[in-house]
């Protein structure tokens, strides 16, 4: 296992920058790739894409329902349509189009939720997507991915081009350090990535919470608590095999996500574990069911304990100290 790469050690980028750069490179070689945007190419870092490939971008304007409907029509006609819009609007305003025109009609739109979770920070609840895992999990025929770092994002975009089925990919605006330099830890949809191994507790996280989870594991190690850290980038289909294995191999399970505690990764794991007779300590960390505190993403994370210190403290409070 590779060591945690410190923030200052290498250059790293926001996952959505990596998304747009990766997609541009792929689209230059594949004319069937079409980006559909809702006046969102700026936030989606797609201005350069639009300049280089003007025939492979469709601007809809601020109309998310139409964005998804049009993308479904493009996909039905054989285009590899990437519908790019802030996650908050894409998965709420256009939910019926996602349910019917994409998933039910099986039109392989790649739904790209940018500035997801609380990336927009102080812009407030209108701009937060803390419901998206929950609503998408309740719809048949869609894969849900929240990559944690630049590597996972690159791989997810490459796979998304090949994955000719409905897909939801969400990420944020914060520059994300590499979780590991261990090249043997690959990336495929539906398979969690074990970044660090330890038998006392398993921390299952996704998206931008995996890095603080990894930092928490380093802190816990200093106190003699050995933690497994998993980047569970695919929420659906959940890597049930890995979760159940972790249940056997470790003494407790903690989940962390940039999502409301209702209906996301944590509850997906809880449902699986409970139905398989799991009876060890279990905790879900995320944004609680309340009016979200105001502040930047970092401040909101810290407020709710989604930080290295907060996650380490939560593990300690699970009562697994030797």
């Amino acid at each position, binding site marked *: 296992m590779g060591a945690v790469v410190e923030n200052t050690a290498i250059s790293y980028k926001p996952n959505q920058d990596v998304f747009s750069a990766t997609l541009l490179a792929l689209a230059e070689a594949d004319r069937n790739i079409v980006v559909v945007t809702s006046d969102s190419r700026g936030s989606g870092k797609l201005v350069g894409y639009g300049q280089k490939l003007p025939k492979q971008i469709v601007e809809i304007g601020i109309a998310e329902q*139409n964005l*998804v409907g049009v993308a479904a*029509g*493009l996909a*039905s006609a054989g285009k590899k349509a990437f519908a790019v819009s802030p996650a908050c609007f894409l998965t709420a305003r256009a939910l019926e189009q996602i349910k*019917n*025109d994409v998933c039910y009609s099986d039109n392989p739109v790649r739904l790209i939720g940018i500035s997801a979770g609380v990336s927009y920070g102080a812009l407030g609840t209108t701009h937060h997507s803390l419901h998206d895992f929950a609503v998408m999990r309740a719809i048949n025929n869609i894969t849900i991915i929240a990559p944690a770092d630049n590597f996972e994002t690159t791989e997810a975009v490459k796979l998304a081009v090949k994955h000719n089925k409905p897909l939801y990919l969400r990420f944020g605006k914060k520059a994300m350090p590499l979780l590991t330099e261990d090249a043997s830890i690959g990336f495929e949809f539906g398979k969690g990535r074990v970044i660090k191994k330890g038998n006392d507790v398993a921390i299952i996280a996704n998206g931008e919470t995996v890095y603080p989870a990894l930092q928490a594991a380093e802190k816990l190690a200093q106190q003699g608590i050995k933690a497994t850290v998993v980047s569970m980038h695919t929420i659906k289909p959940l890597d049930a095999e890995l979760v159940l294995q972790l249940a056997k191999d470790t003494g407790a399970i903690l989940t962390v996500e940039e999502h409301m505690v209702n209906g996301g990764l944590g509850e997906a794991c809880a449902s699986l574990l409970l139905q398989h007779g799991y009876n060890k300590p279990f905790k879900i960390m995320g944004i609680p069911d309340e009016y979200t505190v105001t502040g930047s993403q970092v401040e909101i994370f810290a407020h709710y304990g989604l930080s290295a210190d907060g996650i380490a403290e939560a593990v300690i409070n699970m009562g697994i100290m030797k």
Partner: protein
Amino acid sequence: MTDKELAQRSVTYRKKILQYIVGAKAGHTGGSLSCIDVLNVLYNDVLNVSPENFTSPDRDRYIQSKGHCVEALFVVLADKGFFPESDLETLCKYKSHYIGHPTKKVHGVEQNTGALGHGLPISVGEALAAKMDEKDHRVFTLLGDGELPEGSNWEAALTAAHYKLDNLCAIIDNNKLQITGTNAEVCNTDPIDAKFESFGWAVKQVDGNDVKALKEAFAAMPFEAGKPSLIIAHTIKGKGVSFMENNVKWHHGVPDQEQYKNAITELDMEMANI
């Protein structure tokens, strides 16, 4: 097909719509009867669509936004050979693919519809893709007048004009009634023509129960180069059965045996007079 043959076909379709709705004990009777002439002309005179070419990327597309009038679509698709008509005896039965809204599990159906305000955005996407690929096929979508308050229609209407989609034709089945009452009472959408024209569409108004008028309108597409075409088809809800015509209770009313018999008698008389 001649105008006379088309007119006869419409009567045959109406009889079959009623037959299968009675068999299923469910269906959207009034709207299926109002829009059937549009489907008849589309599938028998306009669309380059057949069971043989249905997987071809070059086929014309027909997307039925007013999915609840699926009985009209199923009857026409059966007639065109997409599936045996006897399949429709399973309409709305347990595990049948022939459900109360269009589903792609039925051969010939382009998109799963039923929720309103979805057909036009998808059609815009299909038409855009055709333009990108420099293909000549066209995209048609049938909307109900009652679904016009759905905002997604107007979002898509903007996009269609913005991208000059003159390979797109929307047809509004303007029977002027919806489940609660008249369009004017529920949410007045008139004047439909001026609204779409102001959005950048080219509009024609026709008698939507007149196959000859419909043929002529479709033949004139695109009505204006560089603009999407809209046909406002003025129709009569329940058309062809006197006691159903313009009567909102037949929105999804199912005839009993005596009503069915009387309706068939009327339609047989109409057929004899063509």
